[in-house]
């Protein structure tokens, strides 16, 4: 079994910045991702990001990824990258088992940083297993990574930023978005994103959801209906929309299973997306030397995931005995950035969730 100084699991924005800070401090890093390419969600984001200059706002997600991977390139053999490698098991003594192709191996790390992100939530409705019903992330992967259109006419379910942005990206790919339905009484994501698709003719229907998918071998239509205040469907309000694709974007849940395997304490916090690890001030889990950051810790944005990754990287480097220049000052500034990013109405949910978790914001 190989021993590593620091292992980062997950090469999305959180994992990449954590790795960068560790490398900057002189530590050796083993960065693991199950995908072919590093970047996590960033590989699919062709739109410009929000935030401020510090988090590369106004750059497209894919361009932010390039900036981050270019900086990684500077560290040569201090950095080992294992792509197409999935961590499948975790043990208490910080041993992880990995699978890559038909190879199976174990690694041990002095410090382990979890940045595994989140998985998409499913939505129960009749015939939701018909071909043509997709999760939003799958649609993005098809379109933006492989250049394949999922269909010609889409019903989008969910008005969070993901539903709004994927609708826009579908239109850019030449796919018609027939309507977007949202169960709540108002749009969940940024209104600028909503206005962007509305002015191109997409109907946004609040208090509405999908009742069932219709079709023999694949989706031929979708039946939608209005919901009352208790989110119960109103009989008689059904409408049929001719679509060949139903795209579900109803939220993400942190991927905490591996952490739970090694006995890390988690807590269910609805506002943060589900079961999340309980973290201390250092972003350390209940197991010493094991850290968590990004969507895994709370479903948020790439901007905040990058800031959290940096904080974790600095903390882990310090506890490895590496000296980090201006560490206290930098951590303070990074915490300030998080506070700014979460300071407005879109941050209400995360602030509430973190409070429940006992984390100071």
């Amino acid at each position: 079994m190989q021993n590593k100084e620091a292992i980062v699991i997950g090469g999305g924005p959180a994992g990449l910045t954590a790795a960068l800070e560790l490398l900057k401090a002189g530590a050796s890093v083993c960065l693991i991702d199950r995908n072919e390419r590093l970047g996590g969600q960033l590989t699919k984001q062709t739109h410009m990001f929000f935030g401020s200059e510090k988090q590369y706002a106004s750059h497209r997600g894919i361009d932010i990824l390039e900036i981050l991977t270019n900086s990684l390139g500077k560290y040569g053999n201090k950095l080992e990258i294992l792509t197409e490698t999935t961590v499948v098991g975790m043990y208490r003594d910080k041993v992880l088992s990995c699978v890559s192709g038909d190879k199976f191996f174990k690694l041990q790390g002095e410090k382990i940083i979890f940045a595994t992100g989140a998985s998409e939530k499913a939505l129960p409705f009749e015939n939701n297993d018909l071909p043509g019903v997709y999760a939003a992330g799958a649609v993005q992967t098809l379109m933006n990574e492989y250049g394949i259109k999922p269909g010609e006419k889409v019903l989008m379910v969910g008005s969070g930023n993901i539903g709004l942005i994927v609708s826009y990206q579908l239109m850019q790919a030449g796919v018609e978005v027939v309507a977007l339905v949202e169960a709540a009484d108002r749009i969940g994501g940024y209104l600028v994103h909503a206005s962007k698709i509305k002015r191109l003719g997409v109907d946004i229907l609040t208090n509405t959801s999908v009742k069932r998918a219709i079709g023999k071998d694949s989706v031929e239509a979708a039946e939608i209906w209005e919901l009352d205040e208790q989110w119960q469907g109103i009989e008689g309000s059904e409408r049929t929309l001719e679509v060949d694709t139903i795209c579900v974007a109803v939220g993400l849940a942190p991927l905490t299973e591996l952490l739970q395997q090694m006995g890390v304490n988690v807590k269910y916090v609805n506002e943060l997306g589900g079961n999340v690890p309980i973290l201390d001030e250092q972003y350390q889990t209940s197991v010493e030397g094991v850290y968590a950051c990004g969507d895994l810790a709370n479903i948020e944005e790439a901007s905040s995931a990058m800031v959290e990754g940096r904080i974790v990287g600095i903390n882990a480097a310090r506890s490895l005995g590496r000296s980090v220049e201006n560490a206290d000052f930098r951590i303070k500034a990074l915490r300030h950035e998080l506070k700014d990013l979460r300071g407005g109405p879109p941050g209400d949910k995360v602030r509430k969730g973190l409070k429940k978790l006992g984390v100071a914001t």
Partner: protein
Amino acid sequence: MIEKNGVPSMNQVKAEFPTQETLAKPKAIIECYKRIPCNPCETSCPFDAITVGEDINERPRIDFEKCTGCGICVYNCPGLAITVTQIKGDQAHLKIPYEFTPLPEKGESVNVMSRSGEVITQGTVTKVQAGKKQNKTALIHLSIPKEFLYDAITIEVSYGS
């Protein structure tokens, strides 16, 4: 209602416009109605005409005296929430952000859309800026009848390619 369907009210829209006299020169109209953590409009403007301020969740405010209508903020805004508008005789000249292909061509007649996604009139494309600086958000210059000043927001995208 914008929270329900993405369409701002006419009052909300008009509140972001300067007087028509001011619009004799091109000015940026910022339609960012809800507080979000974002400020590239402020940092991209070379004339310091836009302020978000210390708290990046504040809504951007514009100083029309400083704004030259250059259009730089238009293609730097991730929300595509800014347009530049000018009144010239019986025409309104717009600079709008556009992220679809194919790009319209100079001289082309295009369908002009309202904020609720209806075709309201025809306009003429007078210039297309789509260089490296615009970084895939093209700046389309558009001339439309002045009566649609407060209604026009973008141009129609055609499907089926």
